[in-house]
């Protein structure tokens, strides 16, 4: 009896009694982690809300210099990657190794596309002298400090998001490898499930960042 208690498998580690228990625990753990991430980003959402309420016009003007089309395309890319991710999870539920790998690869590729587009956007901002610092200048307003504040928040928020994407791509790569060597079955695909939750969460953050950063006051001030 005692010796059997201490045998460990992937699906039921030592401390757990049943596979369901482990899966529930892992899922709950990932959800709790995600709400810590909500609060982590939350601080910057507060800064954005406060300063936007104080400087609506400057923030609007600054926001209009962002390329909303590219932002929308990037949003679509990320939504597609969520789609491929959930299909990977589904394949995990059904225990189909090759399908999992296919969709994980697609997710990773889409993740890179997103990061690439983001990198391009940032480079554009750099060229336009919209990067906060000594050479910052936004045309059309004397309130350079406040305009710089918008861009600081823009870079900080999209930067933190991009960092989470990079980590996400890393996690996907790890999951890809683990799938390749056959660690996952229909009984135990929890890491894919949990990795999926992370990926979708990063997507949700972007779902909010896009309108808040790109679309405010997009129509411009009244003539």
């Amino acid at each position, binding site marked *: *009896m*005692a010796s059997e*208690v*201490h045998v460990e498998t992937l699906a039921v580690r*030592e*401390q*757990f*009694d049943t596979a369901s*228990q482990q899966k*529930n*625990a892992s899922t*709950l*753990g990932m959800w*709790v*982690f995600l*709400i*810590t*991430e*909500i*609060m*982590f*980003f*939350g*601080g*910057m959402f*507060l*800064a954005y809300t*406060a*300063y936007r309420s*104080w*400087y609506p016009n400057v923030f609007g003007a600054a926001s209009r210099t962002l390329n909303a089309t590219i932002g929308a395309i990037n949003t679509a890319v990320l939504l597609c990657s969520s789609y491929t991710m959930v299909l990977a999870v589904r394949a995990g539920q059904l225990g189909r190794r090759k399908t999992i790998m296919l969709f994980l690869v697609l997710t990773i590729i889409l993740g890179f596309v997103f990061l690439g587009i983001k990198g391009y956007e940032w480079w554009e901002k750099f060229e336009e002298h919209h990067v*906060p*610092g000594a050479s910052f200048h936004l045309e059309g307003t004397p*309130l350079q*400090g*406040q305009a*710089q*504040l918008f861009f*600081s*928040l823009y*870079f*900080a928020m999209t930067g*933190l998001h991009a960092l989470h994407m990079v980590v996400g791509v890393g996690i996907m790569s790890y999951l890809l490898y683990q799938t390749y060597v056959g660690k996952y079955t229909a009984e135990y695909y929890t890491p894919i499930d949990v990795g999926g939750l992370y990926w979708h969460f990063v997507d949700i953050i972007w779902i909010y960042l896009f309108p808040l950063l790109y679309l405010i006051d997009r129509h411009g001030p009244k003539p």
Partner: protein
Amino acid sequence: MNASYGIKSWLFTKDHKRIALLYLATITFFFFIGGIFATLIRIELLTPKGDLVSSDTYNKLFTMHGVIMVFFFLIPSIPATLGNFFIPMMIGARDLAFPRINLLSWYLLVIGGLFAIFAMVAGGVDTGWTFYTPYSTSYSNTWVIATALGIFIAGFSSILTGLNFIVTVHTMRAPGMTWFRLPLMVWSNYATSLIQVLGTPVLAITMVLVFCERTFHIGIFDPALGGDPVLFQHLFWFYSHPAVYIMVLPGMGVISELISVYSRKAVFGYGFVAFSSVAIAVLGFLVWGHHLFVSGQSLYAGMVFSFLSYFVAIPSAIKVFNWTATLYKGSISFATPMLYAFGFIGLFTIGGLTGLFVAALGIDVHVTDTYFVIAHFHYIMVGGTLMAYLGGLHYWWPKITGRMYPEGWAKLSALIIFLGFNLTFFPQFILGYLGMPRRYHAYSDEFQVLHVLSTAGASVLAVGYLLPAIYFVWSLRYGQVAGANPWKATGLEWQTPSPPPPHNFEETPVVTHDAYDYSTTVGEVIEVG
């Protein structure tokens, strides 16, 4: 626990009990570092002039005292040592839900601590533990970023511990262990974990923003660019007020256990005490603006936060009354842990009631940023939590080590600590109302008498803390061997040998009684009451 030997077996352990002991060593180390700073502070404050150390050094001393004591000692203290060791056992589990993450938590604390120590050794940091901008972001030329990084990393240690506890308590209780049969220690640590998980990330992002502001001058806290220094304060205190409840709730959990065992009665109003723990955790998130009353926050916001601050006092009141009522018609033992429990209740009462003073807007205008606030929080954190921690250590020492501590020395230490503590911090209430500001290196002559009293108390206090350090170590070798349940306590942890084996229970216990049913542990019985 002695299953395997060697450094590697400790550094790569997954056993929650070993991790708890790793934490014990680490936080004791940090406590003494913080205590040395406190001692230097108090010696400097013996005289009105700044003569022992330079102004800059003094500023670094109190900053590092606060940072080390809060982030590297008190926040991890009870949850990561006593909580880690006993929560799985109390719920009848073999380990926590994520043992390797538990180990990672410890490593994160150590790494964060190394950054903090680096900052100390390389020259120190002088922003105050509160890092107010723009001083910390644009004016201080000390090791702000290193310290912020250390705090950031330690924050994740805290988050992961909280996450682990939450998942464990939800999913791994033994059969029959429903929520309302859990020991109150588990309830308190669960509530603490909620705070850790919801609040600490905001501290993390705040440290990131301080780093960005300091390095890249992004302007988020800089008025010249349209930023607001008060935004920093909102972000910082959104975590740091709940953080103080992280610091006290586990202590309250310990006290619930101690009061119950040493009165040999169930805690009066168990359900209320359990709910109050969660209520404190939740309500504690609504009050952070009470640290910003004179900071330039709007008057209306001040009213909102003051109002809500009084709500969070009520669950604490409920607990104090319930603990006191537990003594009624009990069978009271004066063992050392009980003395610490009494100390906690008394000193937490005083400290908590003075919290009501500072929550009153009209009074806080006068006493904020004075020694009154220092006295308020040292009463709760030192007179409260630290005493609870010591009480818990003494209580569970036999279970952890299999040895008893020397009761006579322990009682003496408790008394010395109690007297030394009050002598140190009670004069500070008077100092504060008189107008002695905090973070002052030199002060006006008329404050000296009270400062001398305070320093005298601090010396007594130091002796009081040194004694347990010595006799606990002594008892490992020479202490009386303890059995499985020397206190006749309830709780699943007392049903294992002392010290417990690697997987705690050979067979999963099945729980059929409520939490504090002493009829199961007291053998032959004389009924009283």
